[in-house]
Each structure stands twice: as structure tokens, then as C-alpha cells.
């Protein structure tokens, strides 16, 4: 237990003596850090599986609030209220997610005189309702998506409405939920057509004639404004965050400021966000999300009445500690800053590092134990917000986020270069992670030029993410590095110390002929050594690779043709198989001597299993439903079972028509990635 001496914190005004953090993971750690800085005692709550978690170790006190499932622990208000009573915490910071936007929780706290570090209940309630929040926003003169919701009699009426709104417009039946039956019209003709379809559908499918005609925002960006409001009516806007890079509506890479906004747009957006906050008498930190179209028109989307995941980028460019501000505001202090005090200092980028496989629909959760874990904190201008450490388990119960990696610099280019370095220096072993995707995003020409939208990932990778594509030079560099690593390890094998009864023959070779297999291709390589550097002739080119060649370190810093590159060696087997991380992506290579490669060609190819008749779990999770039993005949595309992982239900389907041979799991059972679920005949 860490005791903070109060004398060191005289610069902080007194707020609370003890705060309970009703959250886990990185955000709990993040809040505890600021509390420590402010000399506040902290109480962590945790589920039983989290009893060894970092936030528990960091906090001064910890209370177990239930078993692993969130509904029984982190969402268990009774248990958390008990923990508050037990520890005498004066305030609660809810972090994000869990109970952060739960008005009942805020009410219960108020009832026992404990401060909720966040906005008042009425603000949570008003902004929590999508329809109500839009009405309030409209009333507060915040740009909302123009639209019409009601009975449209004729096609010409529809055209008139569409023209008023301005093209493109989206037409759909009001009763249809989500994007169902949605049509996009770019001109009058398409509007008429859309009207016909949608009104028919509205009448036949829903028995409700009402149509919704709304401005369609093509290729939108997701840009949000951070606001900070005290209980005295002072509201500041802390600039924007660009959060357009998303997958499945979850943000992946965020930055502040946005390349897209000019000072005027920024100011107008900021002012509107402030108007909205004032309209609901908002206090604490909050975020107003906007969709921005290609012409810089922006429209209110929703307001998040909590601290956002991506708040660090705002902290980096404004120099404010948002958690500290929230605590001060909750205590009732006035904001110290004025709007003109809020700077944009440089540029900050945040990558969300997740335990997930980016090769499967840009990220399916993965679990495991972090057998090795090293954050790139040796680099300057890098901030890592994480709630895990080496040896931690990433399990199926919670969000699979490993950390938020933030880099900053005077310019965007500087911040990006540091991000590239930081990603290359980040060591994560034991779970599959999304660093390959993150690194590709931040180095993609479209991202670098700022040409992004919420459709960035599907547009850039229409076939799904496939990892870094090596150009000829990079390919040569990879092959040369692998060959040099192989030779280094061969030489190392000769270094038997001490005297033995039979003396060893020294290795007096300086040149080697190797053959490196990458993908399906074989590359002949000639490599010669002088000191710590290797000259490698490969594919008609020559590469010089230098390094200190520490085979025990997970990081492999090399100088390749004079350029510093950080590679990582994940595994190196006797069979010549080496797995290297290069340019963020893992590459499997096999390095063999020329002779071995020749003899290896006689070896039979391993017969791979017929995947069409075997269904394996694509991720770790729980079997929610099993729709087949042995002897059933399934059709191509028919659902076989449903796996739930991290609150996501995934339906697994048959890829061919076949009879079910055997079923290897039952509903309720936990399965690992690659576990056999069902065999077909």
C-alpha cells in the first residue's frame, strides 16, 4: 500500500480525502494517478478475478464487489454502495462505461451524501435519451441533422422536402429501425423513387405511413468537442478530437486537433457545444460529438456525459488534467481558466492497443496471458495509459483493451513519427494484438494526408486487413535481417565455455549460403560477416545489417543500410522457422542452409486439414447457442452455433451443405480460439 504524504501536495487545494473509483483497467489507474498527485486516498473496487489487477495494487484500499461477470461486480450498485460505506469514501469517480452514465447510480450516491464526480442527474438523463437530446440541441441552436419526420403525401412533396434539406438525403420508413430499408437520394428523380419504395414499405411492413427524410451525410468524419463546465455556469470548450478511424463504430485511432477544422469552424463548433452544455446546466467534463461532412458542415450526434476514453489527446494539447478538473468541479470549485487560456499546443495521437486479431474483421477479441509486456516508455513524448502489466490475464469478461498509446509533438508529423517508433518498440507477447493494423493506419498515405472518414477502414481495406505489404526493398531488408539473425544464432551455438575432455572445433566460417523461405517463395542468399555487421546479397541487391544481436531481448534494433529499424523476434526454432515483427506486421520466415533447403524439398508437404468440414472457434468465448445436433443436415450458410465474446455475439455458419458428424461443445461452455466445435461429414 502506497501512502502519499500530504505535505508534498500543498499546491493542490483540498477537495476530498478519499475517492472510490467504480471502474477497472486503465481508466481506474488513470484516475488513481491523479488522485495520488492531489493527495487523495483511493479505493478500488474489483471483481474476484481482478483481485491481482494493477488498479487494485495501485489503490490505497480495495474492495471485492462480486464475481467476474460485470453485472455482478462492476455494475453491482448494491455492492459498490456497500464498499463506499465500508471505506468512507466521500466521492466516486465512475470512469467511462459501467455506471458512468447511470442516473440511478448518481441518485443513490446523492441520497447518501456522496459526491458523484460527473454531471448532475438531470444532465445525464437529458443527454442519455437520443431523441430528447436532439430536441434540446435544436432548441440550443446547435446544428442538428436537418430532416422531416411525418406523413408525406406525394412524391412531389417528398422532392420539395428533399430540396429544402439539400441533397443528398436519406429516405426511410420512420418505423423501420436503424438503417433498415434506408435509401439514399442524390437528386429529385432518386427522391421520387425512394419515396415510392419507402412509402410502400412503410405501409406494408409497418402499417405506419410516416416517412423519415433526413440529410444524408456522405463520408462523414466523427469530430467531437471536449467541454468542461463548473457548477457556477462557466463552460469552456477544450478543442476537438478527430475520431474518424473506427471499426464497427468503435474508435481505433484518435487525434487532437483535427487536420480538417479551420479556426472558425472549430470556434463555431466549440461555441455550440458550450451552448448545449449550458442548456442542460452541465457540470464536469463532457463531450459533444458531431458528424462533419466533406464541406465542413457539422451536425450534432450526441453528448457523452462522462470522461471519454480518448481524453488524453486533449490533455496533451491543452496541458490540463481532466480528472483533476473533474474532481475540483465536483467539489464545487470554479474553473480557473478562461476560454482564451485554452491553447492548442502541438499535436497528439492516440492508438488504442487491443488484444484482438486485426486480420479478422479489423479485430476480433483475443484472450491470453501477457507472458511478456514492455511499454515503449523509454521513448520521449510517449504516454501509455494501461491497466495491465506483464503476467496479467486478458479474459473474456471485460473490454480487451491493452492500453492507450499516446504520442505528441510540435507537429502532426512529429507525433506520427513518434507513434511509429512507439508501436515498433511495444512488446506484447501472449495475446494477439492490433499493432499491425495501428501501424498500417498511421503510416497510410491517406491518413498521413488527413484524408479520412468513418469509412476509412472498409475503403482502404475492402478485402479486409491483410498486414503490411512489403515492397521490394523492405522485403530484401526482412530477408537479410532474418538471415543475419540465423547466422548469429548459429555462431552463438558454438560458444560453449570452459574446457571439456574433447576440445571443440572453432567456427572459422565467414561466408554462408542460405535459402530463406517467405510465403511461398524461396530466396537464395549469400551472407558474409565482419564484426557486428553482415553484408547480405539477396534478390540481386545488397543489404548491410548491423546490430548488437542480443538474442535474449525481445527487441532487435538493427541498422539496415544506414537506417535504424526496430524489429522484434517472436520466436526462433531449431527448424529454422523465425517469426519477426517488421513494419508492425508478423512475418514467418524459414532460414535454411542451401544444402538443407535442397534436402527439404524432398520432404512431403504437410496435409492441411479440410477446413470446410470442420468448424473451429474463431475466438475465445462462451457458446451461447448450438443449433445443430449430430445427424442433422445443414445447408450452406446455415447457422451452426453462436459464440459470445466480450459482449459480442458471433454467429458461425456452415460453408457447405453437409451432415453433422459430431458436436464438441455445449451451450454455456467456454471455448478457446481454434477449439473444435462441430465436425461435418
Amino acid at each position, binding site marked *: 500500500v502506497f501512502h502519499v504524504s500530504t505535505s508534498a501536495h500543498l499546491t493542490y487545494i483540498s477537495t476530498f480525502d478519499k475517492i472510490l473509483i467504480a471502474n477497472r483497467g486503465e481508466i481506474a489507474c488513470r484516475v488513481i494517478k491523479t488522485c495520488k498527485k492531489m493527495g487523495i486516498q483511493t479505493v478500488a473496487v474489483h471483481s474476484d478475478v481482478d483481485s491481482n489487477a494493477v488498479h487494485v495494487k495501485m489503490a490505497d484500499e480495495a474492495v471485492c464487489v462480486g464475481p467476474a461477470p460485470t453485472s455482478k461486480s462492476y455494475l453491482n450498485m448494491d455492492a459498490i454502495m456497500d464498499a463506499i460505506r465500508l471505506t468512507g469514501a466521500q466521492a466516486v469517480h465512475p470512469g467511462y462505461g459501467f455506471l458512468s452514465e447511470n442516473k440511478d447510480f448518481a441518485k443513490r450516491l446523492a441520497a447518501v451524501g456522496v459526491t458523484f464526480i460527473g454531471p448532475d442527474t438531470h444532465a445525464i438523463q437529458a443527454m442519455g435519451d437520443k431523441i430528447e437530446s436532439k430536441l434540446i440541441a435544436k432548441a440550443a441552436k446547435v446544428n442538428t441533422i436537418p430532416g422531416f419526420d411525418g406523413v408525406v403525401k406525394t412524391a412531389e412533396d417528398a422532392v420539395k422536402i428533399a430540396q429544402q434539406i439539400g441533397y443528398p438525403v436519406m429516405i426511410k420508413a420512420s418505423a423501420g429501425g436503424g438503417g433498415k430499408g434506408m435509401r439514399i437520394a442524390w437528386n429529385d428523380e432518386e427522391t421520387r423513387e425512394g419515396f415510392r419504395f419507402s412509402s410502400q414499405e412503410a405501409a406494408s411492413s409497418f402499417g405506419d405511413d410516416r416517412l423519415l427524410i433526413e440529410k444524408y451525410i456522405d463520408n462523414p468524419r466523427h469530430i467531437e468537442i471536449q467541454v468542461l463546465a463548473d457548477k457556477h455556469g462557466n463552460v469552456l470548450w477544450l478543442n476537438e478530437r478527430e475520431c474518424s478511424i473506427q471499426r464497427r463504430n468503435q474508435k481505433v485511432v484518435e487525434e487532437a486537433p483535427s487536420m480538417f477544422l479551420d479556426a472558425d469552424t472549430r470556434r463555431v463548433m466549440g461555441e455550440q457545444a458550450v451552448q448545449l452544455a449550458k442548456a442542460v446546466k452541465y457540470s464536469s467534463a463532457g463531450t459533444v460529438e458531431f458528424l462533419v461532412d466533406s464541406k465542413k458542415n457539422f451536425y450534432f450526434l450526441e453528448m457523452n456525459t462522462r470522461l471519454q476514453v480518448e481524453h488524453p489527446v486533449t490533455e496533451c494539447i491543452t496541458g490540463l488534467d481532466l480528472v483533476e478538473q473533474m474532481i475540483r468541479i465536483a467539489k464545487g470549485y470554479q474553473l480557473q481558466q478562461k476560454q482564451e487560456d485554452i491553447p492548442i499546443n502541438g499535436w497528439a495521437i492516440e492508438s488504442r492497443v487491443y488484444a484482438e486479431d486485426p486480420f479478422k474483421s479489423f479485430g476480433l477479441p483475443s484472450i491470453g496471458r501477457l507472458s511478456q509486456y514492455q511499454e515503449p516508455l523509454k521513448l520521449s513524448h510517449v504516454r501509455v495509459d494501461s491497466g495491465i502489466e506483464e503476467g496479467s490475464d486478458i479474459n473474456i469478461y471485460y473490454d480487451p483493451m491493452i492500453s492507450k498509446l499516446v504520442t505528441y509533438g510540435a507537429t502532426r508529423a512529429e507525433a506520427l513519427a513518434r507513434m511509429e517508433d512507439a508501436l515498433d518498440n511495444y512488446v506484447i507477447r501472449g495475446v494477439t494484438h492490433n499493432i499491425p493494423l495501428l501501424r498500417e493506419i498511421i503510416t497510410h498515405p491517406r491518413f498521413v494526408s488527413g484524408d479520412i472518414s468513418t469509412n476509412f477502414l472498409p475503403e482502404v481495406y475492402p478485402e479486409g486487413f491483410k498486414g503490411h505489404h512489403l515492397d521490394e526493398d523492405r522485403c530484401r531488408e526482412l530477408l537479410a535481417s532474418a538471415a543475419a539473425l540465423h547466422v548469429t544464432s548459429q555462431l552463438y551455438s558454438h560458444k560453449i565455455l570452459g574446457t571439456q575432455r574433447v576440445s571443440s572445433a572453432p567456427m572459422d566460417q565467414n561466408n554462408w549460403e542460405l535459402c530463406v523461405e517467405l510465403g511461398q517463395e524461396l530466396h537464395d542468399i549469400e551472407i558474409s560477416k565482419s564484426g557486428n555487421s553482415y553484408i547480405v546479397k539477396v534478390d540481386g541487391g545488397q543489404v548491410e545489417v548491423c546490430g548488437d544481436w542480443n538474442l535474449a531481448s525481445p527487441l532487435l534494433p538493427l541498422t539496415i543500410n544506414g537506417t535504424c529499424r526496430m524489429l522484434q523476434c517472436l520466436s526462433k526454432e531449431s527448424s*529454422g522457422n523465425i517469426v519477426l515483427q517488421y513494419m508492425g506486421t508478423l512475418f514467418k520466415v524459414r532460414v535454411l542452409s542451401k544444402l538443407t533447403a535442397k534436402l527439404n524439398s524432398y520432404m512431403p508437404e504437410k496435409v492441411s486439414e479440410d477446413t470446410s468440414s470442420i468448424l473451429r472457434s474463431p475466438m475465445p468465448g462462451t457458446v451461447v447457442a448450438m443449433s445443430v445436433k449430430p445427424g442433422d443436415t445443414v445447408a450452406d450458410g446455415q447457422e451452426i452455433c453462436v459464440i459470445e465474446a466480450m459482449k459480442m455475439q458471433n454467429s458461425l455458419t456452415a460453408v457447405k451443405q453437409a451432415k453433422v458428424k459430431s458436436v464438441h461443445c455445449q451451450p454455456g461452455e467456454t471455448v478457446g480460439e481454434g477449439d473444435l466445435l462441430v465436425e461435418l461429414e
Partner: protein
Amino acid sequence: MAAFGLARNSCGLINGLRVSYRSLVQVKYGAKSACLLQTNIQSDCRWYSVSHLSVKERIEKKRKAAQMGGGQKRIDAQHQRGKLTARERVELLLDPESFVETDMFVEHRCSDFGMEQDANKFPGDSVVTGRGRINGRLVYVFSQDFTVFGGSLSGAHAQKICKIMDQALTVGAPVIGLNDSGGARIQEGVESLAGYADIFLVHPSDLPHHGSLCILTHLMLCLQDTSYLFITGPDVVKSVTNEDVTQEELGGAKTHTAVSGVAHRAFENDVEALLYLRDFFNFLPLSNQDPAPIRECQDPSDRLVKSLDTVVPFESTKAYDMLDIIHAVLDEGDFFEIMPTYAKNIVVGFARMNGRTVGIVGNQPKVASGCLDINSSVKGARFVRFCDAFNIPIITFVDVPGFLPGTAQEYGGIIRHGAKLLFAFAEATVPKITIITRKAYGGAYDVMSSKHLRGDMNYAWPTAEVAVMGAKGAVQIIFRGKENQAEAEAEYVEKFANPFPAAVRGFVDDIIEPATTRKRICRDLEVLASKKQVNPWKKHANIPL
């Protein structure tokens, strides 16, 4: 006699095994047909006796012929089966250009069934022998040549092997055998059996079968899909016991690595097996008179392994992977596991600590709670004795809930098999370091290299529970009939489910932070390098076989 001495002295003898074809195949690849030779036999004098080639030319010609083994056609056939030839294997196993061949001119001495024909004489016969180096270290090697009479064992073949074994013994170097043979050469009759006898002199045994030759070697590696090994083949099995079984089921790699425990590790193919063998060879001393080898080490010996602090789960009933601990502690995470698919409730294998080769034994809580049963006891015992025979220090990680109960185990003789492990640990005089990570219950605790078996350094992690049994079982016995079992259980846990009872009695030397485990072991090994312990004299120990 010399060869016998080899066995007594237990020089490093690794046997890469490849027994694919039995007598059936042997006929196919055997001597050219007898009728053909009837006609030829008269006219066909030894051609070189009338040839005008000089001796020098004849030497060249023989050397060339020896290189080709059974000829290009049979080499191609070998390749087509996804196998390498005897020479290719040797070339792959040894450092480039280090092979020095012996007995290239030896030919078989059989004259029946047309075997004396020139066409049926192959210089070197069906085995390639010699010496070479692996990573600069001396090794003797024999490699059976399947292209010559299916690699079958003739008198000459056996003689060649014995010759290099004798030599290996005199210099103190190990022998590696690469087996690919159908068995005894039928044409030779009793002489080939005499050949067996020669080799059996090395590995004294009464069973006149090839399979038994291999089991007496220190370590046996085999290949998936192409290695078969059995005392009697499927046909004989069928005729004797009327049991239908395939070659693969009866004696394939999977059977021997997962069910019978005969083979120590299986590999996908020749190339992979030989490459692994090269690396594995580096773990072992060249002979039992050398200390465990030390390789230069880049992994800091005082590295703190933070991940170990959280590896043991909070609930003591929950499993974890002992390999996580093992990999994290070792130099570069480099672990050569022996018998990874057999008796998986115990993990054994070779690794290095600060460069020095060590043997690792660990209970595996992930499989059958890491309990000791017959198979795991025997697997562990064999490994411990291997280490002791070759001066390799033993590191033991203990998380054992006890011996597996039940009639199957008792009728199978768990008492005597468990005693093998106890015996092996007790008798071993190499440095022994033991880390109790969690459970160390009852007799199984004693067996796992405890202080009572002369453990040099015995450590406990804070999560260790050294006790006679788990709390629940203990309470049921101590407080039989008592009302408040739960309270009694809590008391028992408080008293015994922690490292103190063992620590206050000195049965563990220290309670250590898991993160410091690597540092501790490396430091201890440094000190124990000069350990000298001599067991009381006896003709030989009487291990409970």
C-alpha cells in the same frame, strides 16, 4: 568387451530412430532374384580381377559406388517416400565438411541366395559410419542406408557400428544412430543375428528384436507418419491374438510418443528432426565424465521475472500452465521438452540457466491437476536419472496435489512406480534445486525432490501450501463428526495452507518472491557447480523396477 564397457560407462548415446520397413519390404529391396543369378553365376567372375583398372582407379570407383549406396533408383525412391538417404542425413546432422567416414570399403560376407554377386555387393554395406562435429563438438555417428537391402542388419553392418562405438568410448564422445532398417538380413541367417548379439552387447538385453535395441538408448526421437517400431508387426499380432491393428496404431510415432512412452519426441520429417537434434545435442555433455556444458549467455542471470508474481491463480483449485513458469525463468525461454505428449501431468526437458544446461521437472496443474500417476512417475524418474547420469543439475517446480487414487493405479502398481521417482531423486547427486509454487501435499511432496531427498536448495513461493493433504480432506479426518466443519477448515487453511509449517522446520530454505526465482536459481547453480556427493558403495543400486 569394449563395447560392453561403453554401456557401463554410459557415454552419450542418442538414437535418432527411423524404423519404417520390416522384413516384407526387405525382400522387395533384397538380393536380386535367385533364378537370375543361376545363369549369371558361371560367367560372372569378379570383374575387377580381370580388369585393367589400376588400384587407384579402383579405389576411386569404389568410393563413388559407396557414395551412391543402393543406386540412383533407390535414392529416388527414398526421396519419393519423403525420406533422405543415409548420407544426406549425416550431412545435415553434422557441421559442413566435418564428416570423416570409416569403413567405406566394408562389404557383407554372405554368399547364399546369390548375395555374393557383385551386383549385390555395396561398398560400405547398409550403414554409413564415421565421426564429425555438431556445432564444433565431436560426435560419432552411424546412419543406416535403406537403399542397400532396406538398411538391414548384416554381420558387417553390425561390425561397423561396433567399431565406431569402441572409438567413441576411448575418446569420450557420444554416438548418434540414425536408424532406418527393416531388421536382420534374412539372407545372412545366423550371422546377422550374431550382429544383433554384437550390438546387444552394447545394450544387454534378451529380446532378439530391433525394437529393444532402440529402447535401451538414452533418448529416442522419431518421425510422424514414417516411423514404426514394434516387437512384432500387425501380421503376427493378427495371427497370434486375432487383433486387427494397423502399423501406425501398433507402433507409429503417435503411439510411442503419446501412449507407450517408448519414444521421447516425434518430428514432422527428417529435416526437422535432424535440425532439432543439432540444437538438442548442445544441451548435453559429450560424456558422463564431463560437467554439464555452459554456453555463453546473453540473458541476464539476475533478470526479474515480473510475470511470475501473478502466475499462480487466486483460487487454489484453478489450473495454470507450468510451462508459463518454466519458459519465463529459462535463458531465452529456450526449452527442449522431452516426451511432451506422454503423461502430460509432468513436464520434463532440458534448458539453460545462465548458460548452464539444466534438467527441468515440473508438475503440470493444467493436466489432471498435476497429480502423480504411474506414467508420470516413470517419465519423471527416467528423466531424473538421465540428468544424474550426465551431471546435469535438476530444477524441480512443484505443484502436486498427491498421487492419483483408484484401483487402476493401485493394481497397476503405483507404489512401486512412484518409488522409482522417489528413488531417482534420492539417488541423484547432481545439484538439486526445488521450487514449490503451490501445492505440495503428502507423499507426492516428498517425492518431488524435497529436502528429505537431499534437495540442495528448496524454495517456496508465498502461494505454497506444504501439507499432508488439502484442507477439506484433512478436516474430515481430524474433526470427524464435529459440527462446524467450515470453521475447522478455515483453521486448517490458516495453519497449513501456507509455506510457514515447512519453513519453520527448515524443510524449505527460504520463502522467495516469485519474480526473483531466476536470479536465485542462477546464483545457487553457480555455488553448487562444485558440489561433490558420493553415494555409499554398491555394485549397483536396486531401483524398484
